[in-house]
């Protein structure tokens, strides 16, 4: 056999090699088909509305006018707020896990926090409907309303709001960044920390001057991965956000996200333009979330080397 003329990746020595190559190629073709399908199905909406699909604010199935902006806004607004809060919380938890608690107790606590990530999204949504949303309406909103000079806390709320959705997201993404930070902090060389302590530094100073600078890229990767999760989160958010397209700074107002509008309206979509607009939303959502995940993954993989 003339093996030399084969491209390098085909030079395999037995049938299992070819079979496994075949499986890999099949999966890649599957991924390409998925992209192709989404693009094709989005085409009608993108052609009909052009750039106004991204800049318009109206979503009116009755009139047949669709634009994505309120949903893109809702997704990015809730997810961004969620990571802004989850970021310091995850650092705090990871510090407690690695620096404060003895190892065996830390292990139990980290198992408990991993548990949160294992809870199905609908179950968190169920809890959100019956406990979190009423709590936001009756206890949290009245307190926040006293800060109504800040645009974030203006208006009244029925409990189903950007705020409730953001709280749910914080709860769901914190375990993700925490587990990245927990791993990263464990690998900070002990001699660096001990040197600081020997100089009389407090724990806070060690964290600020050694641990955080040393793990900078892990901190970034962890929060980016959490961001990816928040952007794609569907049902837990759908169940508490109020489902109303709404571009506002007020956290107390109801809103909508890309994932939730697809979940709520796709089966009701009666004409092809409506369906195509929802698929286009899915396409935008996919692109954003792949970008975010890709960047997070690249940073993480560079770290592993």
């Amino acid at each position, binding site marked *: 056999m003339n093996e030399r003329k084969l491209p390098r*990746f085909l030079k*395999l020595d*037995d049938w299992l*090699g070819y*079979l*496994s*190559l075949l*499986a*890999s190629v099949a*999966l*890649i073709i599957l*991924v390409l088909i*998925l992209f192709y*399908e*989404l693009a094709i*199905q989005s085409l009608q909406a993108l052609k009909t509305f052009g750039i106004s699909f991204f800049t318009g604010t109206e979503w009116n199935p009755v009139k047949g006018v669709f634009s994505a902006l309120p949903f893109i806004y809702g997704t990015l607004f809730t997810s961004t707020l969620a990571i802004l809060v989850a970021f310091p919380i*995850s650092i*705090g*938890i990871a*510090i*407690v896990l690695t620096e404060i608690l003895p190892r065996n107790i830390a292990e139990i*606590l980290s198992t*408990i*926090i*991993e*548990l*949160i990530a*294992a*809870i*199905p*999204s*609908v*179950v968190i*949504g*169920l*809890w959100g*409907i*019956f406990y979190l949303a009423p709590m936001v309406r009756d206890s949290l909103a009245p307190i926040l309303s006293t800060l109504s000079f800040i645009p974030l806390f203006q208006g009244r709320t029925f409990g189903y709001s950007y705020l409730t959705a953001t709280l749910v997201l914080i*709860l769901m993404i914190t375990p993700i960044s925490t587990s990245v930070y927990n791993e990263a902090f464990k690998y900070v060389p002990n001699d660096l920390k001990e040197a600081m302590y020997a100089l009389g530094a*407090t*724990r*806070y*100073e060690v*964290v600020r001057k050694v641990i955080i600078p040393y793990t900078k890229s892990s901190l970034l990767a962890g929060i980016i991965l959490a961001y*990816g999760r928040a952007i*794609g989160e*569907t*049902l837990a958010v759908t169940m508490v956000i109020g489902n109303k397209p709404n571009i506002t700074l007020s956290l107390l107002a109801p809103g909508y996200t890309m*994932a939730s509008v*697809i979940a709520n309206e*796709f*089966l009701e979509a009666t004409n092809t333009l409506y369906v195509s607009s929802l*698929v286009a939303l899915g396409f935008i*959502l*996919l692109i954003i*979330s*792949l970008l*975010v*995940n*890709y960047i997070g993954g690249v940073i993480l993989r560079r770290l592993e080397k």
Partner: protein
Amino acid sequence: MKMRTRKIKDKIFTIVSILAVIFITLPLAHIIYTVVINGAQAINLEFLTKLPKPPGEIGGGIINAIEGTAVLVGLTLLISFPPGLLTGIYLSEYGKGKHVNIIRDIINTLSGLPSIVAGLLAYTIIVIKYGFSAMSGAFALSLLAIPYIVRTSEEAIKMVPNEIREAGLALGLPKWKVTLYLVLGAARPRIIAGVLLATARIIGEAAPLLFTAFGSPHHVTSLFEPVSALPLIIFIYAISPYKDWHTKAWGAALVLMIIVLTINFAVKYYMKRTRI
């Protein structure tokens, strides 16, 4: 800086960190508490073994959803495990060169696939032509499971020490025998753990099933008909106006949580016991 202010700063920092732990564990405790308390009211023999009654009528159960979930998970593993494992084998044992990273990256993009988009895709590819069915639901779930299975099998196989491969090859075994019998044998515990964790993840997914498995109040009779699932009825019952359905949503949530947590703890125990 004065010693006192430094000490105070340190104290505040410690307190804030501990508050962060409480901030995140308190809701978890409350979720588990409410699921157990509310779920326990719903669960009885009828709930676990009977079909649902028409909307508004009290009574009936969720056996349709339990059957549906079992069928969906089984089908999903059947669809996603063989190509997932084979791709893992290719990436770790056979593939050499730059293209391996490209293959890995492309399949990895799937792991960023939002679950609702998986449902959309299964709809546009399968449901449009063949209607709502267990098959289309399993296809949507497979899109979520495949990248996970590829990654865990690749990592599991890579952790097998090279001596095992060398010993096999030195005995004159062909590479496929070494890979199938020796390498996979050594990697098996980790692969099983990975598959179980993938199961725990997909079993709670409702979003991909909304436009695929769709839901059904009947027993599962065919893979080409709509089926229900536990996460699906939690969603549908939770947003319904009926009080009895709300109770049933909690009951289903308790059943689902027990399954998911059991799998997670079983894997943890199993990994500890086999020391991997």
